[in-house]
Each structure stands twice: as C-alpha cells, then as structure tokens.
C-alpha cells in the first residue's frame, strides 16, 4: 500500500547528537497527495531528548513530514508515503508494524486544541484505557494526576476533574492535550504548531513546558514562529517547497545558515 519500492537504503549515519543514537532516522521520504508530490526525498534524524523544530513557509511540507512520523497520513485518502522512516531502528512503515502501537510510542498534539468533549479526567485517561495500560482505578488516577502535573495543568484543574475538557481556556485545553498525549508514556511527542491558536501568555506556558518535557521525551515541533523555534529548540530543520533545505543546531541555523534560502527565510525576506 505504501509503495516501499522506492526505498532507499537508510544511511544510518552516526548521529551528530551527543552520545545517543538517533530516535528517528528518516531517509528518502517522499510523500504524494493523490499523485501530487508534497515531500521530496527528505533525510532527517530526530535526536532523543532534543526539541527539533521544523520551520519553513506555509505549504512547505513540514506538517506533512511530521504526520509521517506517526503515520497520521494513513487516514488521508490518496496519500502515499515512500522512503524509510526508522524508529529505534525499526521501519514504521514495515508490514509487521501495528499503527495503534506506533501511535502509543509517538504521541501527537495538534494545531487547534482538540480535547474530547468529555471530562478532563476522561480526556487524560482515554489513552491508558484503550491501550490497557492500567488494571486498577487507583493506577489510572495516578497516571491522570501525574500527566496533568507534568503538563503543568494539575494545579488549575484539580478541583474540577469532572468538568468537560472543552470548558477550559484555549491554553489550558492545549496543555490538556499535552497531558493526554503523555499519559500513554510515549517516546516521541509530535507537535503541529501547538501555540498558533494561543495568546502569548499561554504560549509562554507551553514553551516552558516543552523544556520540562524534553528530559523524558523527544519532541518534534512544527512552528511558524522563528522566535519560538529559536527559544525552544535545540535543533532546527528548514523546509522549503517540499524539500529539506538545511538542518542543524538551532544556534547555527539562526546565526550562520549555510543556505541562502534559510538565510532569506529567517531574516524575513520571504515566507
């Protein structure tokens, strides 16, 4: 189904991160939407315990790439992915991969906060429940509380875990979505412009949270704001017209980009 015929032998390059093997190794990733190519042979590594920012102008394929990492593109009609994406050395588009299991390992937070129209408790407990992570109510309670604490939301909602998740403010909803994502204890969290619908204060809270979460998870974040990329990420990848132009340490990308287009984008000449 996902034409692996174009598979390129993965260049298991020595990771340029400090000491760890790469979490994700992507090589030659092509994506087509109903025949129209959206990504052109992307090679990118995601390092553990890093925040990797994907930046680039609208329609450059950064969200498409992000969605390849937990196979969210599967649900889009007419979308085909080829190339190789290895998570801890295992091809996630391989035939033996269970998408449900993959998405437990690779959580996702979306652009618009999208809590389920259920109680705050049920929102966070949903993942552990469907994956059968707990056997008792008290375990589940623990997971919910810990996840909310890690997402920095527990203090604000501890008295109203039964009220609907949709009753929270936008920033709180987004943190609830983060709590929901980390409740299944994933290894990687993908964030698709998580702050674009939030005000600056809520954004600051989420950014603060990213730094916290980095200790336990690898994070890939798509962002439109270059300031945000500079603030929160350790590594930055610049996409343009479906191609990965440049990837490297955030500081390097923002101070001395190798490519002219990167330079142009971060200085605001286009985008």
């Amino acid at each position: 189904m996902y034409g692996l015929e174009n598979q390129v032998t993965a260049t298991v390059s020595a990771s340029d991160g400090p000491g760890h093997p790469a979490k994700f190794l992507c090589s030659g990733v092509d994506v087509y939407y109903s025949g129209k190519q959206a990504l052109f042979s992307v090679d990118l590594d995601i390092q553990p315990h890093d925040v990797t920012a994907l930046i680039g102008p609208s329609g450059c394929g950064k969200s498409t790439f992000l969605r390849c990492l937990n196979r969210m593109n599967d649900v889009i009609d007419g979308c085909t992915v080829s190339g190789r994406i290895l998570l801890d050395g295992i091809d996630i588009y391989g035939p033996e991969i269970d998408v449900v299991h993959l998405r437990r390992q690779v959580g996702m937070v979306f652009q618009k906060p999208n809590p389920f129209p259920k109680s705050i408790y049920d929102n966070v407990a949903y993942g552990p429940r469907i994956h059968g992570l707990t056997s008792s109510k008290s375990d589940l309670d623990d997971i919910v509380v810990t996840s909310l604490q890690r997402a920095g939301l527990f203090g604000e909602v501890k008295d109203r875990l039964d009220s609907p998740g949709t009753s929270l403010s936008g920033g709180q909803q987004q943190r609830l979505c983060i709590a929901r994502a980390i409740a299944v204890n994933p290894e990687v969290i993908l964030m698709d412009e998580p702050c674009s619908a939030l005000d600056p204060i809520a954004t600051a809270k989420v950014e603060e949270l990213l730094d916290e979460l980095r200790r336990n998870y690898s994070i890939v974040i798509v962002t439109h704001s270059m300031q945000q990329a500079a603030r929160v990420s350790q590594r930055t990848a610049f996409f343009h017209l479906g191609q990965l132009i440049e990837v490297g340490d955030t500081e390097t990308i923002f101070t001395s980009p190798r490519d002219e287009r990167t330079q142009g984008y971060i200085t605001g000449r286009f985008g």
Partner: protein
Amino acid sequence: MTDTTAQSSVMPSEKRQSQSVGNKKPSAAMMARHMRARRRAERRFRWMGIVAVSGALGFLLFLLISIFSGGWSAFLATEIRLDIHLETKKDGMPDYRRAIREALMTKFPDIQSRKDIMSVSKLVSKAAPRELALRVADDPDLIGQTQSFWLPASSVVDIFTKGGFTQGDLKGDHLLSEHQRAWLATLSADEDMRLVFNSRFLTSGDSREPELAGIWGAIVGSFFTIMVTLLLSFPIGVTAAIYLEELAPRNRFTDLIEININNLAAVPSIVFGLLGLAIFLNFMDLPRSAPLVGGMVLALMTLPTIIIATRASLKAVPPSIREAAFGMGASPLQVVGHHVLPLAMPGILTGTIVGLSQALGETAPLLMIGMVAFIVDIPATPMDPSTVLPVQIFLWADSPERGFIEKVGGATMVLLMFLVVMNSLAIYLRKKFERRW
C-alpha cells in the same frame, strides 16, 4: 482587484487621474438611492417571508380545526337508560334482546304495532344485548331482578344527539322518523339519555357498527409494526452508514452504492410494498396481514432515510476529534464508537424518528401485503393479522355509514397525537445527548 491597484501604482500620474474619473467616488445622492433600494429589497423579502409563514400557519390551523371539529365527537358516546327485567329462559340464559324490547315497551306504553316496536328497537345499538350479557357475566345475581342499565344508543341516534344532522338530512324520515324523534325527546326529558366518554372507541377493535368501532386494534397493530421497523432499520441503517462513511474505501463501487441509497429514499412507497409482497409473502411465505411483514416492508422504506441522516451527522463531527482519537492510537472502530458516534447521536436519533414518523403514517405499502383487511380482534403478537392507524382511517373514510365520519376525525387525532409524542421524544433525546456531550 489587486491587479488594478498594482497597475495604478506604476501608472504615470496624469493617467492615474484619468482613471480616477472612472472610479469616481459616488455622490451622496447616489449612495442614498442605492441604500434605499437595498433596504426596499430587504423589506420586500421579509414581507414575503411573513406572508409565506402566515399562509402556512393558516392552512395548518384550518386543517387542525377541521380535524378536531369533525373528530371530537368520536370521543363521546350516547347512552340510553332502560329499566330491564332479566329472567332466565329454559336454556338457563336470559333472552337479552327480548328483555330490551320489553323494557322499551314498558317505557313507551303507547307502542303497540309491530312496526313501532321495530322502530323503537332501532334507537338502541345492535350491540346492546351483548353489552347486557357482559354485565350479567360479571354479576350473575342480576338475573331475576329489575335493574336500570345504561346501554349504547344506535349510531343514528348518536349522531343526532351530537347534532351531526342538518335539517335537510332529517327530511324524509329515512334516518330518524317523526316518531323516533319524539321518543328520543321523551327519553331526553326524563334524563334517560346521556353523553359519556366513549371508552369503547379507545379500547375495542374495528366493527361494522360505527358506534362499536374502536381503534385499539389499529393502535396495537401500529405499535407492533413500528417496533419491528425500529428494531430492523435502526441497527442496520446506523451500522451501514458507519461502514460506508468511516470504513469503506472510496471507489466507484461505493460511489454507486451511495447514489443508489439516495435514490432509494425517493422511490414511491408502494414499490416497497410490491417488493414485500414478492419476497416476504410469496417467496419467504410469511403470514399475510401481519405487523411483522408490515414492519419489515416499512423498515426497507425507512433504511435510506436513516442511512442518509446518519452519514450526514457522522460527516458533521469535527475532524479534529477524529484526529485527536487517531493520534491517541485508537483503532478506526474505536474512533467511531468512542467519539464520532456519540457526537453524531442527536442527529442520528432525529433522522431515525423522522423516518419512523413517516413509516407510522404510511398506507400504500401496507395495502400490498394485506394489512388492509377488516380485523375485529386485537392482535396479540406481531404475527397476528392486524391493521394500522392510517389504514384504519382509510378504511373508515371509505365506509358508506355516516357514523364513521367522526371516527375518521377521531382516529386522525390519535394518529397526530402519536406523531407529536414521537417528535417530542426526538427533541427530548436530542437535548439530553447534547447536554452530555
């Protein structure tokens, strides 16, 4: 738009001026005229709306008034009081018919001729002897005593008492003779005649005699039929819609199915009746006139409505919820079962109840499978022959007897009441689910 502005910015200044004449700022008078025209158009449209709505309400009101004014009397029945002496015959049972005739003759001692006896007997319903027999069965001690009984009046008397005849109707004595009217006046003056709530109308089955006919048989038949329809069409329709909307691949074949389902919703209902006749009766050999078969036919008719409504409400669930659930690693069926379906439930329920209301009022397909028969017994199971409310209305409206006219109105009132109840239920369920989610 952007083109012209871009052009004008590069144009030499004198050319720009000449163009600005063409794009002249409209004068105040022009703008006022324009505004007036726009306001007029809006006012005109609003008035058309008001006229249309009040016209529709007027027609509705007229319909309701005509139904209620013709139907209220079905809920009342005329009864006549007679002092009846019951005496057993040789076979141990009293002759009720004779007892009633004797009571009438005691009441009106001037009656002697055979013709007059016949004539006065016609004031009381043909069912009166059976009514007496039922009372005696309840209380055997009544035999040997003289007791006063309230007995149902005949249909003609019933209509006459409720003022159902015009002067023209009564001319010629073929409905009620001069004599009969005089006797009725006597009965009325002696307070031996009364109008009571017609419980028979709501508790008995159909009858050849208008004063005895009731709609309980049709109500039970309708209930069984609708239950069968609900039990078949709701689960099948909803699961079919879920499969087509959420799980089935999008290709030419599923497109074809979708088009066909939409077309099925517009197929004349009698065609479904023919289908039921051919398959359920002739091929599967199911019982004729049974609510089971009626319900199956109506389920076929309701399925497209439910499928279309369900698909529409599934589509209306925001994609972000689906994404969130998929992102959490839910399987497609879990996404539907845990998130999409509960959110779509209000719309699905509304669609289902609309479909069922349509089925409840359907006549044509049921004619084809024999639910149009004259059935006196109350059906005990969905396999028993029975009829349904709209068919009963049709049958009564088709009868020559004058007394069935009010029954048509009364039965229509009952049918409308059921529809109102069902729709209220739909609104209640929708509100309830909306609050939870």
